[in-house]
């Protein structure tokens, strides 16, 4: 037996070495295709960045790829000007308020409801849960007109709060769905023993459910953050003076050709934050995506 093992292993190794070389050469076209496709995919974003660091007068006559022949044309002056632009600074602040506020509220309210649906008993629980899932089908366009009226009536039109609450409501069905299904998977004896120990529901929720549910909560939080950071339609409808960055840039689009030195850097600023979030939490992002293909 001991002698047989290496004799089996040896030819296997030789074959794999030969196969490796063969595979490497056979794969050359594949690598080439992937490099070209990858380049194609990165070019638009790269072009936006280069456009954002070129002075307006250079952009009037030649495209952003002039940077190859005139690397010295690059300048941070567009960005400098923007960081002294009160409108943009306000827009960034508003965007942050909306994104953070929405994320916190969706996570807290969604986790509470998810916990109730997973572990608390009350009559009609399952029907109610099905109802909440059913709300996933409601496109937000269904609520724009009524909420526009309602906000007007209650005098909260054009406030950060009104935009946040709209986002929270439309984020909840998926949040509840995701978290309830995750919480249900928490082992029953952990819950039972906590209850036997006399822990209150609030204590169980804070000390047990939230920490154990962290992976799902992280995915949800990242998605909610990106969703609201990138939103246009809600803020465009309910904000006038309250403008997040997308709406602020949208206001400049009419003069696309002449204000490209504002539009390009502002757009790039708007996508830096989501990109950082994405790179920092890539794993949760992908998990959330896989779970969230329903939305």
């Amino acid at each position, binding site marked *: 037996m001991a002698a047989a093992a290496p004799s089996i292993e040896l030819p296997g190794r030789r074959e794999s070495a030969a196969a490796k070389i063969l595979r490497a050469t056979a794969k050359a076209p594949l690598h080439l295709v992937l490099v070209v496709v990858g380049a194609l995919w990165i070019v*638009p*974003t790269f072009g936006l960045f280069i456009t954002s660091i070129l002075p307006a007068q250079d952009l009037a006559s030649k495209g952003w790829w002039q940077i190859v022949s005139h690397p010295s044309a690059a300048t941070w002056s567009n960005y400098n000007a923007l960081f002294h632009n009160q409108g943009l600074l306000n827009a960034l602040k508003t965007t942050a308020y909306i994104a953070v506020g929405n994320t916190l509220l969706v996570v807290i309210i969604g986790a*509470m409801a998810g916990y109730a649906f997973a572990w608390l008993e009350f009559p009609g629980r399952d029907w109610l849960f099905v109802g909440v899932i059913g709300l996933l*089908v409601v*496109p937000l366009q269904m609520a724009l007109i009524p*909420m526009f009226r309602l906000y007007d009536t209650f005098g909260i039109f054009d406030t950060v709060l009104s935009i946040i609450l709209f986002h929270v409501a439309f984020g909840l069905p998926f949040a509840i769905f995701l978290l309830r299904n995750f919480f249900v998977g928490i082992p029953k004896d952990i819950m039972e023993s906590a*209850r036997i120990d006399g822990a209150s529901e609030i204590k169980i929720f804070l000390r047990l459910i939230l920490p154990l549910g962290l992976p799902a909560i992280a995915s949800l939080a990242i998605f909610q953050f990106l969703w609201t950071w990138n939103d246009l339609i809600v803020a465009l409808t309910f904000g006038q003076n309250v403008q997040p960055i997308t709406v602020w840039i*949208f206001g400049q689009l009419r003069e696309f050709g002449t204000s490209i030195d504002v539009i390009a850097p502002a757009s790039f600023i708007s996508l830096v934050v*989501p990109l950082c979030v994405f790179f920092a939490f890539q794993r949760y992002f992908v998990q959330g995506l896989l779970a969230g*293909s329903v939305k």
Partner: protein
Amino acid sequence: MSAGEVTAEPPLAAAPPPSGEPGRFGRYAAGAVFLAPALFLLVVWMVYPAVYTIVRSFFGQSGYLGHWVGIANYKRLFTTATLTTAIKNNAIWVAVVPALVTAIGLIFAVLTERVRWAVAFKTVVFLPMAISAFATGVTWRIMYQQDPGLGAINALSRSVADAFNPSGVLSNALPSTPALQAKGGGLVLKTPLAPGGVALLGVTGIAPRDVPKGAVQAVRPAPKPGDVVGTVWRDFKPGGGKPGVVEKGELGLPGVTVDLRTTAGKVVKSTKTKADGTFDFRNVAAGSYRADIGAQTFAKPFGGFSWLGPRLITPSLLIAYIWIWAGFSMVVIGAGLAAMPREVLEAARTDGATEWQVFRRVTVPLLAPVLSVVFITMIINVLKVFDLVISLAPESTQANANVIALAMWRTAFGGVNDFGTGSAIAVFLFLLVIPVLALNIRRFKREV
């Protein structure tokens, strides 16, 4: 530990409640407290608005309800030009995008499966998912600019177009004397020529920077017996000069194709001018000829496709949208691929199946559930597309690029504020989304 096992048994778990546990009513109360905020938001922001919008869609343009109009708003949906355009465009979106996104994602996922630097590739393709559709619109608007000097895509198109249909040496030139006439896109010299003759082809309207490289002082060639000679030159010097006369300070135009034709129009000889603009048709048989400069010399340079114009705007939007979502499709399908039983694939390979056969007969059928998830998700996304269209399509072509969600917004909030028709469009969108999403949820519940 054995105690834990015992309590897990249903009958025992239901037995005596510990003294500290609240009664049934207390437990209901806890449920109500935990649910209250969510239910409040869902009812006020989703249930009430959905009902209101449905009711509102049967009433007129303005006011809290307006006046009853029956299904007039829905009729308008299929009779107003901008709205039918939106529905047609959305049909194109649904027909094109889900299939392409799924196919591209599948190809990328399979191609990267056994490549070591797959993570880098996947990250690059996935990046657009993190960027807002709005910023994507701005990004692609830069790419799509019509002037090939400004828009990268038209710059690329130009280099391709120039290879097949190069722009002329003299794209803006005009004849300097009436002896030279425009004909069929080129210029033809009216004066008949015979062997030993001299053809003077003077042109103007050429900016200094457009003069072909290497041009030197123009020369009027001496007649040669048996040859037709001549010169093509820029018949202009600072101060003007005399038209039709080769003067000092006027440049020859090199590289211009000159044809010698019979009076019937048949090309006998063809040559190119030298640096001083001269050309020489050698050994021309006796007869009467005409000289002309061919149309290709005056071909206009490629002006760029109007990607954001009324005709190409929807295809342009589709390309940008696929650019965003290919990464999503690739990652989801990639996850499905990773979860696939390796033995099945290996077994097929051992049995002598080619890679293509493995892909076609094993991989794709096994992936079918994942592919359908991506496909259905994309249908829903595409039905609701809004941000990309409003940011990428310039205002002048938004009517041509219209889609349902954009039509809804423009109708309700874009100045007219027709809440009746806006509600009807929203309900229409709702009705389109329901069956697709219901399908998705059912599948999802089966999995859970």
